[in-house]
């Protein structure tokens, strides 16, 4: 690679809402700098111009839901030096992974007038189920500052700094009073990966778990708390079946709640 050549950036879309890739356009103050140091080679939300691969950095949004996409992700992997997945769909299958808990054919026959035209997979799966992923950026949507951090880290050849601790730490750093303790409000903060800056608790709402499970997660203890604070079993199942429903930890907990398992709090 010539020293003067700018690294090529490609943005790819699979089953998703486009919100994560729009986070890149949302970096208004930094966008010109990004464009000056990276060659935007493929980014349908920004430009019709498509430059040929290979690409130095591929940002992949969305989950794999069709046989066609299951093929396409392999092509993209082959063309990409670094592949970074962005958002809950790409990392955990997204909200569309709710289909994974039911029979997809029943949905198809209920929703579409001509189900025979629909070609879809039984499950919505994360990109890492199909190809090697170099880094996963969490969020639903991702945080634009964290996206810039990932791009910077790639350019500087270092590991991105996206701490895996709880949203609780972010509440405490910003001085937000705990909604669970002070209001008895259900909140997924203690089991959720940080990165949003504790957005919902700062607006007096419990965390919805958008960023998926944190490291060393204890969903069973939180589920017991929810039960002891009047959250019904069906609502406890739903609490873990959000945007990261198919992540390992949240899937196991929602299934355990569905089976009526759980620990009691003293």
């Amino acid at each position, binding site marked *: 690679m010539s020293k003067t050549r700018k690294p090529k950036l490609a943005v790819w879309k699979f089953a998703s809402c486009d919100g994560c890739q729009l986070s890149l356009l949302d970096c208004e103050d930094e966008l010109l700098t990004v464009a000056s140091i990276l060659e935007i080679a493929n980014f349908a939300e920004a430009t019709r111009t498509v430059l040929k691969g290979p690409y130095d950095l591929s940002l992949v949004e969305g989950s794999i839901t069709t046989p066609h996409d299951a093929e396409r992700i392999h092509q993209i992997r082959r063309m990409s030096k670094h592949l970074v997945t962005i958002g809950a769909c790409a990392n955990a299958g997204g909200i569309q992974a709710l289909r994974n808990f039911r029979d997809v054919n029943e949905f198809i026959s209920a929703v579409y007038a001509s189900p025979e035209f629909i070609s879809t997979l039984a499950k919505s799966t994360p990109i890492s189920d199909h190809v090697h992923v170099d880094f996963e950026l969490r969020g639903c949507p991702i945080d634009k500052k964290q996206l810039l951090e990932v791009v910077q880290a790639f350019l500087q050849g270092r590991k991105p700094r996206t701490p895996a601790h709880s949203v*609780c730490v972010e509440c405490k750093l910003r001085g937000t009073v705990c909604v669970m*303790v*002070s209001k008895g409000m259900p909140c997924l903060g*203690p089991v959720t990966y940080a990165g949003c800056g504790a957005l919902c608790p700062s607006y007096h709402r419990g965390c919805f778990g958008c960023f998926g499970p944190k490291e060393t997660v*204890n969903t069973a*203890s939180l589920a017991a708390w929810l039960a002891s604070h009047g959250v019904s079993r069906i609502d406890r199942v739903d609490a873990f079946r959000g945007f990261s429903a198919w992540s390992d930890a949240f899937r196991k907990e929602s299934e355990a709640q569905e089976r009526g398992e759980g620990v009691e709090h003293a």
Partner: protein
Amino acid sequence: MSAGTTTAPTYRTLTVPQLDQLLSALCKEGYLTIGPTVGDAAIVYDEIRSTKDLPRGYTDEQEAGSYRLRENAQGYFAYITPVQSAKQYLHPPRQHLWEAVKDSEGFHILPDPPANTRYAFVGLRPCELRAIEIQDRVFLTEPFVAQHYKALRQAAFLIVAQCTRAGATCFCQSMGTGPAARGGFDLALTEFPEEATFLLEIGTPRGQAIVDAIGCAEAPEEMVEQARARQSQAALQMGRRLDTEELPKQLGSSYSSGRWEQIARRCLSCGNCTMVCPTCFCTNVEDTASLTGDHAGRWQRWDSCFTSELSYIHGGVVRKSTASRYRQWLLHKLCTWHEQFGESGCVGCGRCITWCPVGIDITEEAQALRQAH
């Protein structure tokens, strides 16, 4: 400790208008006055300008994993403990350390000079005052002095609000840190809410100077006695207790206790206990760099022994399990802190009990571990 020799305590009476004068005088001297106020359905520390900002009539009910603000009290300092402690200001969650700039001649490191903010804390609880003294030992012991902490700490003016009642998660009596402070402050107040007056205790010459300018009357002997009696009353109301006799020694042999795994079943490893603890001091260092790579910054950020990152060294994470993280925290607080700093790392404020979402109680766990001994 920061304002020279302590004078013999002298007692004055302070009215509410005089407390306002005191706050104005501190502002005029360039202090940023931080005190308790109602925010976010809780008593929090924030900037206060006058007694109107104080949480008059409010109190709080605290239990393991529960905090509720109540509006049924008399007085300005009728609450138990604010959500956070002075740590939020003296050892802030994020601290810029230095930045580096790259130009044609290479890299230059530009140090960030310590902040010149002069905080005046109004209404510190005695346990919080002791927590500051404990952090002093951590940050100000030679040769490793934290310059940012030192600058903020030395400039700080400390006004204590002595406790005349205790909450359900308080155990300062056990830890010998309250309910009354006997030194280490510039001024200390004991509230007499039914008369809307305070007994004012002067702790330092600079405290004396600011009080002399207001011209408070000397307090009668019986007011001093009454204040002592009210403080003793608080000592009887402690909702929790911790038997500290031989505690570090007995906990020191609890490493392989099965209790740690039991706690880990409830523990969320969320880190809340360490964030609200007024003595927990662990930090991480984060480097930032601009997109163009010509500007870099280094930040210090609060970290917690409940994260995997804190014990990450070359080759992996040392404390992988929640049990090992809780053990590290409790044993450091009550056992190894003695070896490291010659005192306990716990002041008995009860914050870790109240603000643990699942209500894990350090006094209960320490007692259970001791019994297993």
